[in-house]
């Protein structure tokens, strides 16, 4: 097997001073710390987030010492209630940032999210400004319950916003934007990128607006539309494709709800050939909405079928060869892109 066990890289988030090479997870910690310093209404809650421990991934390591236990609230194991509690706090003007230990456990809080938080402003006009941080995605041999990508459920739910950063800078900028947004925002962070992806992160206040995609690479022959962990794979694939004289554009969605429809339609219209990629299960994954959007509003520009590459329609398997078969990666993207380019 090529990949070894990573144990999710459970170590302390490096307090990286070199902004050129800041890790994705350090960028998350920095965003939280800055927002908590800026605004007393921002607090953190979830299982094991407090104490010296600072969360399963150590994102809030040191936070209790700086902000005190009231602002870094260790909760009992009760996702439905503590997310519901965040609803009440948010209604009273606080800005809770809820950590679900793994994105997989967000289902336990489902009612508090999709029924209460998502509908409240529409029903009686009061805002529920919270953020749920959900460590998602796999490729690290953690099996069906620590590898999930449940974003599609929330994208389907009116009243929520959903973001999924693909770079350290976006991890920071989107988290700050999410905390300042007046709506419930689910922030899907990528476990596989935590410590393996480093890059430049602007210092101080840095906001990436919700709803704006990022054209991560320009190209002419084909558009690869993706987000989260798969952006890195798509960029790798695009380099490979370039060597084979296929010019691929890579659009990193960054925000999954609301979608940046113009950016999606622009790239589709430009290249006429679209490949959508995500780690989540393919059937009715976000790729379906993007394909449907393009098939409706960029139809006359299309020069080929719209391809989707997603996780297979199985639970996420544990064993390395199975998980590798399950997940999209650069090689699979290259293959699909070549097929499409040749159409």
């Amino acid at each position, binding site marked *: 097997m090529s990949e070894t066990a990573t144990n999710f890289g459970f170590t302390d988030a490096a307090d990286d001073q070199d902004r050129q090479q800041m890790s994705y997870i350090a960028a998350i910690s920095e965003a939280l710390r800055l927002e908590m310093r800026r605004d007393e209404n921002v607090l953190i809650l979830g299982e094991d987030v407090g104490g010296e421990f600072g969360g399963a991934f150590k994102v809030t390591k040191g936070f209790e010492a700086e902000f005190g236990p009231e602002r870094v609230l260790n909760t009992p194991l009760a996702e439905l209630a503590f997310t519901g509690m965040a609803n*009440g706090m948010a*209604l009273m003007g606080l800005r809770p940032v809820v950590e679900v230990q793994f994105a997989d456990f967000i289902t336990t809080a489902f*009612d508090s999210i999709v029924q209460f938080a998502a509908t409240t402003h529409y029903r009686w006009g009061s805002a529920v400004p919270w953020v749920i941080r959900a460590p998602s995605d796999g490729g690290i041999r953690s099996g069906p319950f620590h590898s999930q990508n449940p974003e599609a459920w929330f994208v389907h739910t009116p009243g929520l916003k959903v973001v999924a950063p693909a770079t350290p800078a976006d991890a920071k900028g989107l988290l700050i934007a999410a905390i300042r947004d007046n709506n419930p925002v689910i922030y899907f962070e990528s476990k596989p990128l935590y410590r393996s992806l480093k890059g430049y992160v602007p210092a101080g206040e840095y906001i990436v607006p919700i709803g704006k995609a990022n054209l991560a690479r320009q190209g002419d022959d084909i558009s690869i539309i993706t987000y989260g962990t798969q952006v890195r794979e798509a960029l790798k694939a695009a380099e490979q494709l370039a060597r084979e004289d296929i010019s691929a554009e890579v659009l990193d969605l960054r925000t999954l709800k609301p979608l940046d429809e113009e950016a999606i339609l622009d790239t589709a219209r430009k290249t006429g050939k679209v490949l959508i990629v995500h780690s989540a299960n393919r059937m009715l994954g976000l790729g379906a909405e993007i394909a449907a959007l393009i098939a409706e509003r960029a139809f006359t520009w299309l020069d080929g079928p719209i391809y989707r590459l997603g996780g297979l329609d199985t639970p996420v398997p544990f064993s390395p060869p199975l998980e590798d078969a399950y997940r999209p990666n650069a090689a699979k993207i290259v293959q699909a892109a070549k097929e499409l380019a040749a159409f």
Partner: protein
Amino acid sequence: MTHTQLSPQQKLELYYWMRLTRTFDDRMLALWKQGRGVGGTFSERGHEAIGVGAAYAMYPDDVVAPMHRDLGCYLLRGLSPRRIFANLLGRETGITRGRDANLHGMGDLEHGIIGFISHLPQSLPVALGVAMSFRYRHEARAALTFVGDGASSAGLFAEVLNMAAVFNAPLVIIVENNQYAYSTPLSQQTKVPDLVVRAAAYGLPGVTVDGNDVEAVYSVVRQAIDRARGGGGATLIEAKTMRMLGHAIHDGAEYVPRELLAEWEAKDPLRRYEGVLQQEGVADAVELSEIGERCQREIESAIEFAEDSPWPDPATVSEGVYAP
């Protein structure tokens, strides 16, 4: 139980709110029977003493998350009968501007009220969060919420009792034990006839109260609220009562033994309080019926207002999904 001393004026206020609630309820049911309603609706007949007594025990800066049988609480906290009726009828002038149904979603933070959602008992963690916001800001305020006997079987009830205890939250939870959850009697819902025993299992104090005695309700809730506001933490109160009509307007409740209803009819909270007030010389029959007439007029004018109110403009249907 020694009742906190209430003045005659206060007693009359309690009576007024219960009477207003009953009048609202009666007129609503009549309207629906005439086909003038929209969708379904819930009666709170039999629950007047709980909603009113508890709301009367609140301080102005406390916040409440009521459930579907707490009309009296909404009224007392300041939602006008007009806006509520308009809500029931789906009008633009209703609290939810036609977005939410019957007593759902009647939230208004100006009045310290959290809107209700169907998923039981979702009000509980939200009220806990409100309480925790007070704790967070070191404000001496309390949150109050209600839950049914049926909804107390939902795990969320236990999660909230536990967290309220762990966090020493300024929260008061009132179980409205009205013996039934839809068609399911308490004996099929749980093996413990006294739901207040759940309190101890999570480290909270628990109190039982006669839910048809408005002053008793007022008194225990007031004590619990004072305790919460004073930093003493959460309390679970079980108010025993009976759901006197069907689960909702369409339900004839044939499954409820008629003797049980007769037994509780004799304990009707409104009639009973009328007896108390007359016995104590607070008011005579004439004065009480004057209050009744006043309530009648208010409700009639509310109905008129609601029925004359415009429907929401369909062009606005997509507005408000997101906060700006």
